């Protein structure tokens, strides 16, 4: 297997934690809310899923519990940010610290333990194509994530629900005036974002690298938030961005395998450096951000 085949085969799985968390944050931000606690919610979801799978509860229960747990954490954010109209940046950071702290606390006695991941399901015919065949052999969560991407894209493009969420993000006062409950929709969006972050953390902990280590999320929640900006709040571009980061995080392994003489720390910081560079390139186009950005992002709604 050469480096290209290795990256193609692993890219989607590596991209899945980024993708799930970024899709959740996309919905949150489209509704006009900025929840910076993704890293903490992922860490919390990860530890919940790991403990359940390690206690033989199974992957399904692990994912469901992780989604519910992180959604509960995100509702704490929602109550303070939407109910009490406090500073969303500060609450997001606090949720992040709390989630990471709880993750470390509950994960303490599971340090370095492993669980079994999920088998890969191959699509007939497609997975036998040379070079790109690996793309079509993925575990069930990857396939479900792709379905979720399509569903969210279609929701924003074609449904009334998508339109309502966008209207509330663009102009909450107008949406309120025509009878939509801004706070209720935002609550639901935040809870959805929390659940998706929980699934993302669960995938990282019990499928992608099924071994518990404190701090295993390693900035992926923050990159997911950056991905929403990269994708200029568009589902398709966020998917492409997630694939890029999946590939970048595999490049380190691929480079080491080929015996390239680069310090491992350079390879480990590659995703962060790419984030910084891409963020600069995309944001420099102010018109692009203005055109696609969410007008009321981060502002509390007051009637």
């Amino acid at each position, binding site marked *: 297997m050469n480096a290209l085949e290795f990256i193609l085969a692993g890219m989607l799985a590596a991209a899945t934690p980024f993708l799930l968390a970024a899709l959740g944050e996309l919905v949150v931000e489209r509704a006009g809310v900025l929840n*910076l606690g993704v890293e*903490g919610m992922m860490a919390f979801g990860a530890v919940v899923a790991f403990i359940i799978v390690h206690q033989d509860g199974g992957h399904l229960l692990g994912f469901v519990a992780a989604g519910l747990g992180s959604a509960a954490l995100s509702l*704490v954010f929602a109550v*303070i940010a939407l*109910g*009490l*109209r*406090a*500073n969303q*940046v*500060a*609450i997001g*950071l*606090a*949720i*992040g*610290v*709390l*989630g*990471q*702290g*709880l*993750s*470390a*606390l509950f994960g*303490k006695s599971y340090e370095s333990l492993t669980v079994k991941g999920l088998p890969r399901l191959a699509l007939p015919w497609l997975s036998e194509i040379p070079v790109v065949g690996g793309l079509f052999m993925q575990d069930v969560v990857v396939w479900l994530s792709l379905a979720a991407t399509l569903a969210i894209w279609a929701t924003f493009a074609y449904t009334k629900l998508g339109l309502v969420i966008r209207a509330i993000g663009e102009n909450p006062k107008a949406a309120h005036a025509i009878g939509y*409950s801004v*706070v*209720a929709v935002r609550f639901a969006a935040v809870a959805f974002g929390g659940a998706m972050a929980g699934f993302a953390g669960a995938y990282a902990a019990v499928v992608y690298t099924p071994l518990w280590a*404190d701090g295993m999320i*390693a*900035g992926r929640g*923050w*990159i997911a*938030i*950056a991905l929403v*900006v990269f994708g200029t709040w568009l589902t398709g571009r966020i998917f492409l961005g997630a694939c890029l980061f999946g590939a970048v995080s595999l490049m380190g392994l691929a480079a080491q395998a080929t015996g390239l003489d680069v*310090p491992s*720390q*350079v390879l*480990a*910081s590659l995703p*962060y*450096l790419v*984030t*910084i560079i891409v*963020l*600069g*390139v995309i*944001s*420099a186009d*102010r018109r692009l*951000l203005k055109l696609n950005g969410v007008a009321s992002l981060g502002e509390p709604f*007051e*009637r």
Partner: protein
Amino acid sequence: MSALSRPFLPTLVRRERASLAAALLAPPMALAAATVLNLGLYVLMGRDPVAVVHAMLLEPFLSWASFSEVLLKMGPLLLIAQGLAIGFRAKVFNIGAEGQFILGAIFASAIPVWFPQATGKWIWPVMLLLGALGGALWASLTAFWRVRLNANEILVSLMLSLVAAQFLNYLLLGPWKDPNGFNFPQSVMFQYDAMVPILISGTRVNVSLLLTIALSFAAWIFMQKSFIGYKLQVGGLAPRAAGYAGFNEAWAIWLSLLMGGCAAGLAGAAEVAGPLGQLQRSISTGYGYAAIIVAYLGGLHPIGIVASALFMAALYIGGDNAMVSANLPIAAVRVFQGSLLLAYLIAVAFVRYRLEWHRPAYRSQP
């Protein structure tokens, strides 16, 4: 939303003027709420809550030996938080103080690592200056990205912190590793002149604490009394008004980030030239992130921050105590920090709002 759709929920009504009583009560109320919540958690984990409270919240203040350690821990938290608060009030969210702190430590270590034989009274002051320079340089990347490239400073500064941690690892496992250090990821021990002099004999508290307190005073003058500080605050509270008044936003971003970077870098330098005495991985224990909480808990006010830094430092020492005496994982400190900030944000919401259980019959138009 009609009143009927949520008859059991109170509505949040803006107060005519901010409540001083709520502002003064917010910190103690938040502390009480966070303490009760966390004690509940410890009971669920099967720990003795009385022992934990004693070890965590009282012991740090009960002996001079442990209180001096609190003062030692307070230094970096206070210094970083003062720098960050200036930016936060200008709505420049530098959350990458951890990286600026690491770069400060690396810059300061350059002298003892490259010139281990050098002697003279000039060494430690120059190291502190280099540290401030390193922190400011690292922060200037974020400022450039924000001002010239329009990139979100929260994300850029955080990513740079993760890069800084990898850079530190690289130095300690590679070129700066102590050749006689049994392969541990740490630099050589610093020479005597590279250490900040001890302030209180018999403890590890050094002269940098005086510097930190002096800089806190300077921050108070700057934020409350100077015209530049006033311009920064207006920029944060009313960006458009600041624009009309001719206050330059780009300049405010540069100033906020450079001051935050300087303070964090100085704190990093004081850490390696103080209690550690060498560059090692354990300099990065999250002071930069904890200082964000310190800044908010102190109400972003230079004097409030002194109190919150002292409390957070005590919490660290208390957490260490509780780990030993009550078998509480050290991560409990982070849970406490996060829940404390959340409780504070809830409490502080009532400075400007009050709850009303019935819908007001008449509301003035916004």
